[in-house]
């Protein structure tokens, strides 16, 4: 596993510091703290989707797997009476097991066929939530998914408090990004990008392409399952519509705007576009149109995404120094 170099350490450290101080910076404003939590969920969704992208495919079932984690955790609470601390891990395990099972046929498809198959998987997951009304609550969804309370003997943290939930979400999202980052910078990550570039070439250098694809997909879906559980206990209500195809598509947009080649891309894309989306909320009906304009403008004006900004700045300084 390669060590993280100094500039990256500084960049990630600064981002984490800003994230830690954000509630203080915004004066514990409930709405802005809520935006921070939504950013955290979107970062986790986009980063785990990017992990699958490192294999060269985009899964439109990703929001569906987030839903599996969310529903599993909600049902653990409602049917078994166990708190999110159990639901989170049970949700992750259910999500991982389902992802492993589905990836066996799914990862045998390629290119447009993978896209169509993953779309179908996402739809089937969503429609199952709607169809089995007695178990999943149908289109009405599941209500009253309580946030957890952490009892540390000497102190109790009630995560119904928005600031407390922000830090909980930040912790898990940071762990998710860290896991994805470490995998990506390891030899396994190199293998994923080799598969991304040329599956056949990867295979005849001795890489078991199928096994790597299945494992990568399963890890990414397990991580997004944890995010789903966190989402459910934050929103306290989930329905099939919470995890439809649009959620996966927005995550894809976060990837494209942020950049597709480094972990920083989806993180930057999710942060910036969630903020843009919230800023445009006031425009009501025109929000989607404005969002589309911002998206097209960013793709046209910043090809390669936000992740290319440091490189562009470096290039400007190097050009100036050569004059």
């Amino acid at each position, binding site marked *: 596993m390669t060590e993280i170099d100094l500039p990256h350490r500084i960049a990630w450290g600064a981002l984490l510091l800003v994230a830690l101080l954000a509630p203080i910076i915004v004066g514990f404003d409930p709405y802005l703290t809520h935006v921070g939590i939504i950013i955290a969920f979107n970062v986790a969704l986009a980063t785990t989707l990017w992990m699958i992208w490192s294999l060269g495919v985009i899964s439109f079932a990703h929001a569906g797997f987030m839903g599996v984690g969310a529903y599993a955790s909600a049902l653990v609470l409602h049917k078994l009476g166990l708190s999110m601390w159990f639901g989170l891990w049970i949700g992750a395990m259910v999500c991982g097991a389902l992802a492993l099972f589905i990836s066996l046929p799914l990862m045998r498809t390629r290119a447009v066929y993978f896209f169509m198959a993953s779309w179908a998987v996402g739809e089937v997951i969503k429609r199952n939530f709607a169809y089995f009304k007695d178990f999943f609550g149908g289109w009405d969804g599941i209500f009253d998914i309580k946030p957890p309370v952490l009892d540390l003997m000497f102190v109790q943290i009630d995560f119904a408090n928005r600031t407390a939930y922000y830090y909980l979400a930040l912790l898990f999202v940071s762990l998710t990004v860290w896991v994805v980052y470490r995998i990506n910078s390891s030899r396994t990550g190199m*293998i994923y*990008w080799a598969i991304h570039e*040329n599956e*056949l*070439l990867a295979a*005849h*250098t*001795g*890489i*078991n392409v199928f096994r790597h694809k299945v494992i990568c997909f399963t890890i990414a879906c397990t991580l997004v399952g944890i995010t789903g559980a966190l989402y459910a206990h934050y929103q306290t209500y989930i329905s099939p519509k919470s995890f439809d195809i649009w959620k996966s598509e927005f995550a894809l947009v976060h990837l494209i705007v942020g950049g597709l080649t480094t972990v920083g891309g989806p993180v930057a894309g999710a942060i910036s576009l969630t903020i843009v989306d919230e800023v445009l909320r006031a425009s009501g009906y025109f929000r989607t149109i404005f969002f589309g304009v911002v998206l097209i403008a960013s793709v046209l004006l910043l090809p390669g995404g936000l992740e290319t900004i440091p490189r562009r700045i470096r290039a400007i300084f190097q050009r100036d120094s050569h004059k």
Partner: protein
Amino acid sequence: MSLLTVSGIESWYGASQALFGVDLTVGEGEVVALMGRNGMGKTTTIRSICGLTPARKGRIVFSGSDITHQKSFRIARAGIGLVPEGRRCFANLDVSENLVATARPGQWTLDAVIELFPRLGERLSQSAATLSGGEQQMLAIGRALMTNPRLLILDEATEGLAPVVRDDIWRAVRSLKQSGLSILVVDKTLSELMPVADSCVVLEKGSTAWTGSPADLTAELQDRYLGV
């Protein structure tokens, strides 16, 4: 003792038959030149050996095991390293990542590959996409060596390269031969190929037409089979 034995393989691309019975043998530490005019089945033979275009008939035995219908990655793990036609590298990885990603334990390490191709050592953190054609070919050979193969297959390794770079590649091939590595090599440059090869296999219309030592490949045979 033979390391690789290909017996009467027949391969197809969809409904089109490309190989009609190819036989060849590569012994331990031997360099075998696979020859023939364009379209005679050299690359298809290599693809069949590596499991990319599996043979429908015939048998391929490597180190005593039948690999005819094995998956490509298992064949590579069994000890066959392929340097494919067209200097294929993982363009989205840098030089060291290209080498390390597919590495398996053995005598060939990153240092050993850099010793063989010092130019790669100067470009370890450079993207493979930005290398020159010759450097990409060195990288492709280095990557195949990092899998620590018992048999190295070189498909048109010097095609389209500048003479000075070709010299580097042939120097490396000679060095690999001296180290005892078995090599199956496809190349059109007979003047460079003949001194290295221990034996030659000539393909004609998808089947083995002639087998023998380079010394026996007379001008008449070269004219008949290779159009030289």
